């Protein structure tokens, strides 16, 4: 989700301008060259690595540029958009100035949000910035010291971070300049720099820790789950926390004097600001100043000096060694089929023998095993849970008793049935894409009569995996809490939803499953796109609410919906090769 918020690191201004930006950053980070030299870094290597990395960042096209570049030349809007969003996030941080009664409290909250958001965006960006596996083949065999490589990585990250951080911190800086004084704003900026350094250290330490405790092979999947978790956590906290906050209580709150606060770095930065901006050098303030300056610097130094060598070693194993290890499978061990019986059963129920069933099973397995797919679709599960839990926090009078209430129950459960299609829609939208898109040649060399069979199998697998379980869950809850009278309506909801998904598939899906390459950050819009797609079910749900009380009408609609679904699925099955966009090359 962070990629979507900030755009990814590829979002840079177009050529003439970005070169100025990059040159500025490059010169800026190379200012302490003599310090680097003393640390054992080869500055000319450092410069050329950084230069090359920045050049490459510039060249990676983003979605908007890719699609628009065909029509006109170079685009700068993407970066502006990214920076604008960063700035908006920064503006959102200003909320912290309305919580608590003094600046230490405001700023503790501000820095907490700042560090958290930065850390989250770094976690997702690090896998692309830090772990460019090609470095193993290109940079590591060259006579370059480990320390130079790590310093280059760190500085690259700092530049990358600055491009996010600068617009993000701007609202806060301006606010501080107006509310306090120029000096207060300058101290605030200094604290932002040190808290950024600390965040980089935290993420680095986290990565090093993960690399220490697990095998490099598992590293990337762990990071993926981390990213999923963070995205959901972040989304959840932004949704829930503001609702939970009781403003009246909060405005009078002050964090100062709380001993526990010392365990949280944001508090150091806040207290240090207090001390420096007001020239108030009491013992606590001096301690905070020392902590917020010394700790980030020392931690960065430790990363470079002590962790770096082993880190690189491990990193170089992420890709290389496992390839060799996996090439020797365990001998003499006969493996059974890996398809669980219930999946086979469902495949037999839902899909016709042949290409469709093959596609059903194939997509079922691919969606469980492809890291890429999981990373893009599984966060939707989290978002859904958050949104489902949300009402309990919003309204004090929204609770289980109210769900049982005869008036509200149908709305809630029918609403759930429609709303939970969010996940399956994300899955369908993502299903065409794969990192291993080239493997799609299998569709083209086999005598498949109609590719529609494959698409239909994929659709059914997505429905069976990402929708049916939720429907069963919601229906069970509905029957227990609201009684079986609701069953026809639930059924209608289910059929309508299947119809909607089938229609969307019929209209929009022009590619075979896992056959397309996804440009690096096409995913950025998927969450928004997914929400947008929810408009259709929402409209159908509204129509459904109009008739839900008239059971005979509901039955008629069930039949109509089922017939329409059946027809649509038939049409999908008949999609011919001429309609397929993926190519066999």
């Amino acid at each position, binding site marked *: 989700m962070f990629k979507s918020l900030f755009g990814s690191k590829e979002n840079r201004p177009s050529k003439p301008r970005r070169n100025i930006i990059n040159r500025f950053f490059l010169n800026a980070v190379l200012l302490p060259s003599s310090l680097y030299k003393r640390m054992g870094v080869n500055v000319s290597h450092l410069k050329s690595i950084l230069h090359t990395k920045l050049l490459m960042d510039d060249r990676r096209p983003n979605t908007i540029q890719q699609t628009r570049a065909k029509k006109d030349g170079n685009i700068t809007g993407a970066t502006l958009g990214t920076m604008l969003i960063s700035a908006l996030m920064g503006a959102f941080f200003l909320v912290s100035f309305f919580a608590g009664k003094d600046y230490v409290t405001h700023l503790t909250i501000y820095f907490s949000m700042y560090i958290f958001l930065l850390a989250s965006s770094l976690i997702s960006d690090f896998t692309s910035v830090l772990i460019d596996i*090609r470095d193993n083949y290109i940079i590591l*065999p060259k006579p*370059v*010291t480990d320390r130079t490589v790590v310093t280059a990585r760190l500085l690259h990250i700092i530049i990358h971070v600055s491009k996010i951080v600068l617009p993000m911190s701007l609202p806060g800086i301006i606010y501080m300049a107006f509310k306090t004084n120029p000096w207060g704003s300058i101290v605030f900026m200094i604290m932002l720099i040190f808290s950024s350094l600390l965040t980089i250290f935290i993420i680095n330490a986290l990565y090093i820790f993960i690399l220490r405790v697990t095998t490099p092979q598992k590293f990337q999947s762990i990071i993926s789950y981390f990213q999923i978790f963070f995205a959901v956590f972040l989304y959840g906290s932004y949704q829930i926390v503001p609702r939970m906050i009781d403003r009246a209580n909060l405005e009078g709150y002050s964090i100062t004097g709380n001993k526990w606060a010392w365990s949280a770095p944001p508090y150091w930065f806040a207290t240090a600001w207090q001390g420096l901006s007001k020239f108030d050098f009491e013992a606590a303030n001096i301690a905070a100043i020392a902590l917020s300056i010394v700790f980030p610097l020392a931690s960065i130094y430790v990363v470079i000096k002590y962790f770096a060598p082993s880190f690189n070693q491990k990193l170089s194993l992420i890709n290389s060694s496992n390839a*060799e290890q996996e090439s020797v499978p365990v001998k003499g061990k006969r493996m059974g089929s890996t398809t669980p019986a219930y999946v086979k059963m469902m495949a037999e129920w839902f899909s016709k023998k042949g290409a469709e069933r093959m596609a059903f099973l194939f997509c079922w397995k691919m969606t469980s095993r492809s890291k890429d797919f999981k990373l893009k679709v599984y966060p939707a599960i989290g978002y859904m849970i958050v949104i489902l839990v949300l009402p309990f926090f919003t309204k004090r009078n929204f609770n289980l008793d109210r769900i049982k209430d005869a008036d509200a129950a149908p709305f809630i459960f029918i609403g759930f049935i429609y709303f939970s299609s969010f996940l399956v829609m994300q899955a369908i939208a993502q299903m065409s894409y794969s990192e291993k898109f080239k493997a799609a040649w299998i569709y083209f060399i086999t005598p498949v009569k109609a590719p529609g069979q494959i698409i239909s199998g994929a659709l059914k697998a997505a429905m069976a995996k990402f929708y049916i379980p939720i429907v069963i869950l919601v229906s069970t809850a509905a029957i227990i809490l609201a009684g079986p009278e609701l069953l026809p309506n639930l059924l209608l909801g289910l059929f309508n939803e299947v119809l909607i998904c089938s229609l969307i598939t019929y209209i929009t899906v022009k590619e075979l499953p896992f056959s397309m390459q996804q440009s690096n950050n096409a995913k950025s819009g998927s969450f928004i796109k997914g929400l947008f797609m929810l408009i259709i079910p929402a409209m159908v749900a509204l129509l459904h609410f109009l008739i839900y009380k008239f059971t005979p009408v509901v039955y008629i609609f069930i039949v109509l919906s089922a017939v329409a679904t059946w027809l649509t699925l038939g049409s999908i099955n008949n999609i011919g090769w001429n309609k397929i966009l993926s190519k066999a090359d």
Partner: protein
Amino acid sequence: MEPIITVKNLWKNYGSKQVLKGIDLSIYPGQVIGYIGPNGAGKSTTVKILCGLISDYEGYVSIKGMDLKKDTLAVKSIIGYVPELAELYDVLTPMEFLTFMAELYNLDTVIAEERIIKMMTAFGLENNIHQRMDTFSKGMRQKVLITSGLLHNPDIIILDEPLSGLDANSVIIIKELISRLARDGKTIFYCSHMMDVVEKVSDRIVLIDNGVVIANGSFEELQQQQGNQSLEKIFAGLTGNDSMNNAADALRSAFEN
């Protein structure tokens, strides 16, 4: 003559898996070593150790009299490595990529640029020097990679499947280049699965299997030991097992149902 590469009792394991089990090698300047072995025999691991990519090995490796563990950087600067996978920063142009490589090898930029142009021209890529490589074919990428491995005029050149993706004409160029470089006194460490090429270009063939050297000598010596047959046959005889011949039969008979 002093060997340029000395490997003594080299052991390496990935966790519980022992990949190299006591490799001994002495390689002399001007030799082309064909380094062959079945998949998973430990070829790539050896190459990575020689390139200084893996340092937690046991045993002793010295290159041009330098201990690999102690003088890693000095060793790296006299080795040219052409990796097996066509890994490139392909959003760069060859010129950008290769000057970057040259900078990492501490080459003078002016000299480097001259060399790059000469070498790319020799490969027939003079018109592509300033094009981004993401549109390049596998063969073109391979040519850029080979250039990047030779750019700094290394004493030792490690080639890992250098011919993959190259067309027949380029293959001839590379094979010729290998023998010329060897004549100039360069040492070439050639890893490949293409037995016919190895047979022709190598002065000495080192065959490893399961992390152990099982044959080491010129092609003629191997023929004397193993009977007068092609390297492919010798390879199969040494590393395969009896079931090899039956495998084809078994494959064919799988249709009989």
